């Protein structure tokens, strides 16, 4: 495996780690399964691309994150104030965002940024002639991930951050601390979706194009990465676990790259990520069931027969 392949895997791992950190906040902390990741990731990509193409490379990053906040706000309002199941809310928003994202791209399903100034090209020019000239993508991705991890490690120990963690733990206790769980859920989803959108924005700019499918399957890939990280980092505080989520994302991409070298077709990515999620979630379930299964097998009977 060549250095450049490893570098590409690291870049992709770090960029999708932003979506993984979003799920770390929504899935692991808030205990909400936010399926709007795909639509929100694409929205971050389209908003960021449109902003960059219209000549605002720096503005494209906050613009994408604000789009993510709005997306998260809508998903949370649907589930906390309008009585829609959280899973359904995510699916509805994904479907709606398909139309909205095409509208954002100006009635197109593909935008090209080959000659657009982006945060990546800006850094590339700045590093020209230095030893880091070829790692500009890695540097942008690393800075973004480091900033998000630093933010999470600060934020999750503030009073609001504690309230968000407690919401996933015991909403009754949040209520009895005079805090509305609907409020903490809303704040948590706004923040997590801003990370997702940031990931979409940076991925699109690093590959110099965005198409309407850029986010499809992202939620499963991110969940697979998160669960890999969880298996590897079982101990430690919230910061260690956040780093674990990033590590999970990088490992996922490295393993995927190795698999490609062994001639696995590229289109298998989504099947692999689905299988990883299935194993990671059903693994503990079967572990619990193992004594029952083992005795049934050894005694050669089922149930109460």
């Amino acid at each position, binding site marked *: 495996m060549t250095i450049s392949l490893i570098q590409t895997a690291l870049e992709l791992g770090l960029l999708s780690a932003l979506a993984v950190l979003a799920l770390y906040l929504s899935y692991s902390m808030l205990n909400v399964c936010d399926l709007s990741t795909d639509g929100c990731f694409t929205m971050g990509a389209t908003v960021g691309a449109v902003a960059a193409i219209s000549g605002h490379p720096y503005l494209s990053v906050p613009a994408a994150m604000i789009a993510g906040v709005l997306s998260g706000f809508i998903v949370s309002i649907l589930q906390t104030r309008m009585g829609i199941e959280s899973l359904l809310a995510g699916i509805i928003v994904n479907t709606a965002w398909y139309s909205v994202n095409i509208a954002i791209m100006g009635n197109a399903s593909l935008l090209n940024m080959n000659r657009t100034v982006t945060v990546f090209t800006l850094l590339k020019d700045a590093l020209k002639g230095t030893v880091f000239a070829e790692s500009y993508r890695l540097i942008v991705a690393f800075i973004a991930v480091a900033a998000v991890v630093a933010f999470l490690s600060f934020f999750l120990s503030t009073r609001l951050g*504690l309230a968000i963690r407690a919401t996933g*733990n015991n909403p*009754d*206790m949040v209520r*009895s601390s005079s805090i509305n769980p609907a409020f903490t859920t809303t704040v948590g989803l706004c923040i997590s979706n801003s990370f997702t959108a940031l990931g979409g924005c940076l991925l699109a700019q690093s590959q110099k194009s965005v198409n309407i499918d850029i986010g499809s399957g992202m939620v499963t890939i991110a969940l697979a990465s998160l669960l890999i990280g969880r298996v590897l980092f079982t101990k430690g505080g919230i910061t260690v676990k956040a780093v674990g989520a990033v590590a999970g994302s990088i490992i996922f991409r490295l393993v995927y790259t190795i698999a490609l070298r062994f001639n696995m077709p590229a289109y298998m990515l989504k099947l692999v990520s689905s299988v990883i999620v299935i194993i990671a979630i059903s693994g503990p379930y079967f572990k619990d069931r193992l004594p029952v299964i083992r005795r049934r097998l050894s005694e050669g009977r089922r149930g109460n027969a």
Partner: protein
Amino acid sequence: MLKLSHISKTFAPGTINAKKALDDLTLEVADGEFITIIGSNGAGKSTLFNAIAGSFLIDSGSIMLGGRDVTLLPEHLRARKIGRLFQDPLRGTAAGMTIEENLMLAAGKGGWFTRMDNKQRNEFREILSRLNMGLEDRMKQPMGLLSGGQRQAVTLLMATINPPSILLLDEHTAALDPAAADKVQSITEDTVKKEHLTCLMITHNMRSALEMGSRTIMMEGGRIILDVSGAEREAMTVQDLLDRFREVSGKAFDNDRMMLTTD
């Protein structure tokens, strides 16, 4: 302090399962009063607490707390004035968070972005040390590692860290082993006395219903059927209480847990 006027609640109205859980109930609780509540299974004791805490909207009547009408106020806003403990020690705390983090949320001091400082940590250490459970040295451990009695004691601390207008105790020692129950019970009495708290306590133990507090009420069918205090209560025995119940309700007392603890 607390004034319930003609409150009623029917669950699943209009169906075959309709249950009138609170039936035109009126109760006035004076400031600093400690009332023990007893009653059969399904008498409406916990429903009464749910109505006060705002877990549901009552069908009719009104609830005044500290001079303010809270009938329509949502649960989390009422919680500023109400401290509540449940029978299940797991309900009051977040298991995945540390002891000090749980206390910080309950204390609710400062803005949303404040973090715990050493001053606050020392305050927590001090109040935890009063429990005599050694928890002051375990403040960074997750709540989930504590025993039921320890969790319930911490929940009591959390409920009273900002002295509430009224403290609701719903059989909060019933799920604990006898030693832990005694310990939590005595911490409860100390706290209530020290903070001069107004308190309602549901119990299945007839004897502690008469020994603790200053007034005892008995519920049946969503109503208060007996309300004793003062000299009359002083002179009462558990047998008197059971006799009075039979007299007013026309049937024998039926509480599956209580049968074992009427000694």
